[in-house]
Each structure stands twice: as C-alpha cells, then as structure tokens.
C-alpha cells in the first residue's frame, strides 16, 4: 500500500508538470514594402550551376505570404541559457541543392548536430563564419561525398555559412542554448512547443527586417499562449 501511494503521488506530480507546459504560437507579419528581390545572375550564368536551376533564381530576403505573413523569422525565448537538449535532439539538415542552400535560415540548439548534404553534382566548399566564438571551418565537399557534421557550443544569431566556390550561396544558422524556439513558415506562423509555465520575453528576429529582434512579453499558463509580431520595413 505504501508503495502504491508513493507511485500515485509521483504520477500526480508528473501530471501537474505536464499540465504546466504549453505552446506559444503566433504569426509574424511585415508592414511596409520590401525592396524587390534580385535575379541571382552569377548562378544563372554559371556553366554547371546554371543547368541545375529552372526558371530565374532570385534572392529571397523577404518571403512574404498571404496576409503579409513573413517567413524565415527566428522566434525564441530570451534570457534562458544552459537548458540545451541539443546533444539528444535529432540532427538538423542543411542541403546544397541547385547551387543554393536549402533552407537558407534555420535554427538549432548548442550541441545539436547540423548535417550538411551536397545534393549537387558539383563541388562546394562549406565555410562557416562565426562572430560569437564558434570555430570557423572551411571544408571541401565534392559531389557524392559523405555528409558533413557541424556542432556549435556557443549561442549565436545568424551564424553565416557560405560557399566560396559559388559566391552567391549563403545560409544563416541561429544557435540557441535551449529548446524554446521556432522559425516561421511561409505564412509567417510559428509554434514554440512545451514551454513551462511562467512569464517570458519572446524575441522575433529577421535577418533583414529585424536583425536585433523585436520583443514581446508572454505569460504561459495551462493553455497555449499567443504572441504575434509585426515587423516594419522602413
């Protein structure tokens, strides 16, 4: 009887814990008129890469969907550190396809693996440039060669990846020291999952519209909380 009582108490505590975590959802929209995207002329004119793309490849700094939803915004909780679960989290994939990085904006945790694939029949070099103390690397990746694996120990916003063989190829990786973040989809929507109850500052960062971020206070209780952001193009 004693043991069953203990189990019941433990189960009750666990139930309370689960009930105290909820999601933060929201939409990021863009106000103002962004500059028109440009054709990536050197890609189109490249003897090998030009054959790998269809249509006219353009930059995609402002991907604005229906209802002004803005994609590629990194949304995360601010002021939390040392809570990374990256070591046990599934790896995140960055692909080189059509001589472009896909996706160009992504986020992962410290210690989480980033798998870089080369799906092109051409040579790329994968060059990471950190401004926050993560080691820089510059590694050749031939066509058909094994995937490359990167991990980062320090949080960093928009760590740059580039290919020096194809100068128009860029990706930006945001490294977070906890699991409470998301990247908006093509409609500007995001969900940060399993946030423990409490009051938080949520920050939304877009590499062009808001590189240093726009903040909002949110309180998470039993149910999903909402945080919508509006970014401005000046």
């Amino acid at each position, binding site marked *: 009887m004693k043991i069953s009582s203990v189990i019941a108490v433990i189960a009750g505590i666990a139930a309370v814990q689960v009930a105290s975590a909820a999601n933060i959802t929201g939409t990021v929209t863009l106000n103002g008129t*962004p*500059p*028109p*995207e*440009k054709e*990536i*002329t*050197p890609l189109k004119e*490249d*003897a*090998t*890469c030009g054959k790998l793309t269809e249509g006219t490849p353009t*930059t995609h*700094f402002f991907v604005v969907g229906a209802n002004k939803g803005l994609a590629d915004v990194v949304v995360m909780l601010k002021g939390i550190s040392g809570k990374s679960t990256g070591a046990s989290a599934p790896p995140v994939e960055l692909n080189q396809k059509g001589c472009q990085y896909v996706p160009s904006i992504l986020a992962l945790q410290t210690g989480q693996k980033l798998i870089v694939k080369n799906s092109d029949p*051409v*040579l790329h*070099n994968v*060059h990471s440039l950190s401004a926050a103390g993560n080691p*820089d*690397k*510059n*590694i*050749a990746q031939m066509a058909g060669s094994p995937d490359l694996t990167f991990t980062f120990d320090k949080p960093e916003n928009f760590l*740059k990846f*580039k290919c*020096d*063989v*194809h*100068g*128009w190829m*860029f990706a930006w990786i945001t490294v977070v020291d906890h699991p409470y973040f998301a990247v908006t989809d093509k409609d500007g929507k995001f969900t940060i999952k399993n946030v423990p109850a409490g009051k938080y500052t949520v920050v939304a960062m877009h590499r*062009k*519209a808001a*590189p240093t971020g726009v903040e909002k206070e949110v309180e998470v209780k039993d149910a999903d909380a909402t945080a919508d952001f509006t970014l401005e*193009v*000046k």
Partner: protein
Amino acid sequence: MNAPSHNPWLHRFAVLTAAATFLLLGVGGLVTSKGAGMAVPDWPTSYGYNMFALPFKFWQGGVLYEHSHRLVASGVGLLTTILVVWLWVKEPRRWVKWLGVIAFFAVVLQGVLGGLRVVWLKDEIGIFHATLAQLFFVLTCALALFTSRWWRTLPSPLPPLLSDGRGEQQSFSLGNLPGFVLATTLLILCQLILGATMRHQHAGLAIPDFPLAYGKLWPAMDADSVARYNQQRVEIVAANPITAFQISLQMAHRLMAVGILIGVGAVVWGARRWSPRFSVSDGGDSLKAGLQRLAFVWFGLILAQVALGAWTIWSNKAADVATAHVLVGALSLVTGALWCIISFRRPVTQFGCKSVSTSARDLRETVFKARAAGSVSK
C-alpha cells in the same frame, strides 16, 4: 672609375618580372572581387593535390580564380628567384644586389601571407597581403629602372663646370616638388591600404550611389539609418551587413581621392613651371622632360582612377571594373614612386634659377678628388 656596363638581358628580365607582377595583381584582385579568397580551403596543397597537379574538374567557380592566382604567384616567385640570382652574380652595384634579395624575401613573405590567410581562416591577413603586393610591384619596377640603360645615362651627381671663365657654378632647383611628390605618393599608398581594408570587409558597396552618398553630400550614419540601409540592400555575393564604420571608410576613401587628384594636379602644374633656361649640358634636358612627361602620365592615371571608382559604384561593384580600379591604383603608386626615385637620385641636381659662386680651382679639385676616390656611382 668606369660606369658599370649595361646588361640588356638582365634589364629585360627585370621588366618581365615587373610585368608578371602586374598580371598577378590583376589575378589576385579578381580573387577578392569575386569573393573567392577561400575557395581552395587548404594550402600549400589544393584540395589535397599538389598545387601544380590539380585536376581540371576542380577548376570551376571561385576555385578557377583562386587556383589561377596561386599558379601565377608561383610563376612570379620563380621569376623573382631567377632575377635575384642573376643580380647577385652579374650586377656590380651592391645596393642593387641587396634590393634583389629584399625582393626575394618579400615574395616569399607574400606567399606565406596568402597561405596563412587560408589555413588560419583569417580574412584580415588579406589586407596585409594586398598592401605588400602593391609594394612588391613598386620594388620590381624599381629594379627594372635601376637595370635600365636610361638610368645609367642620367647626369653625373657632380655638376659640370661651365665655361664662363669665372668658375661660377650655376645650380638648378626642383624646388620642393620632389618632397611634394613623395607626400602625394604616400597619400596614394594610404588610399590603397584604405581600399584593401574596404574590399576585405566583404560587405559589397557600403554606399551604393555616387557622387552623392545615400542621396546626400554626407550620409547619415546613426543606427536607425544604417538599419534602413541594410533593409533596403539586396546583395547577391557580399552578404555581410554594412556598418557605420564601413560607410565612414568609403567616405574617407572618396575624400582622399580628391586630395590625391589635387596633389597630382599640383605636381603637373609645378613641373610645367620649370624654366628651360638653366638646363645643364649633360643630359639634364632629357631628365627634366622625362619627369614632366611622367607627371602628365601620373595625372592621367589619377583621372582614370577616379572614373573607375565611380564606375565601380555605378556597376554595383562589377568584378572586372573593381579589379581594373585596383590595377590603375597600383600604376598610380608606382608612377609616383618612380618619380620620387628619379628626382631624389640627384638631390643637388636642380632645375631653376639659383647661382652659387665658388672658385673654379676649388671646384676642379673637388671633382678630381671625388673621381680618384671612385665615389661616383650611378
């Protein structure tokens, strides 16, 4: 003492080395203009291969520029080594031999800097690499000058006596012009260093318009304005955001260009004012004419450089235009440097109007002693 005999093939080889260095400046400039400085991630190998055996399948995109750069650089290193040995064996003037040795160590250092930039992933080393490249080009051109027949036919350092019976020596003044040329040349060097610093920011055009800057004579550089500039930029190959520091670098570059244009224009004006009345009879006419022509060439180069600078901005930093801007900058530097070398060669040789009386006997004795001591060198 007889003047050392001219070695035409040595001179031609020195010219070849200088020309190859100029080509290397262009190829190297193209590497930066194309953002391909790190396209070959290892050194001294290239993708694990001996640099001279890299398969052609690798010669694509940025690798084509960076690898070509390494090959041409190796060629310049070889030419410099041959030149140094040739100078050491055949050149009678010790100071020219040692200049050759300096050139050798400079080209070795240049190669090491380029390699370290790659293996250390230190883009800032590229600024020193670019600056040393320009200085090395000046050195190779100077060696070509010193080994030329023309250099050896310049007037003797000691002024000849005129047959006026009184032994009155006419001396001729360049005035302050050589010092002014030196100052302008140093200003050009500073401008080149500034340009190299700008190029190695890899942030593209910090100011996208010319002659205005963001539509104004002086651009706003507060945080909100810079954020707005970055929002409106749609960069394709240079994806670093611009900063207020980079904008101020660009403005400094523009202002310095104005200063250089005025400086070289003043040199042309000063050179035109040299009086033809007091030429010495020993070839000084050709020296004076040569320096005047060089001043005009210099001014033409600066005008071309200003035009290329504007075109670089108007073309959104097209790689070929930006590289041409680098090359004409190098020619501007070397022209000023050669002008200085030639004019400072004879600090007592002057064009102008200033008489100094001395006894003819004293002067003859001075000449005799100097020649006996063999202190006359060219």
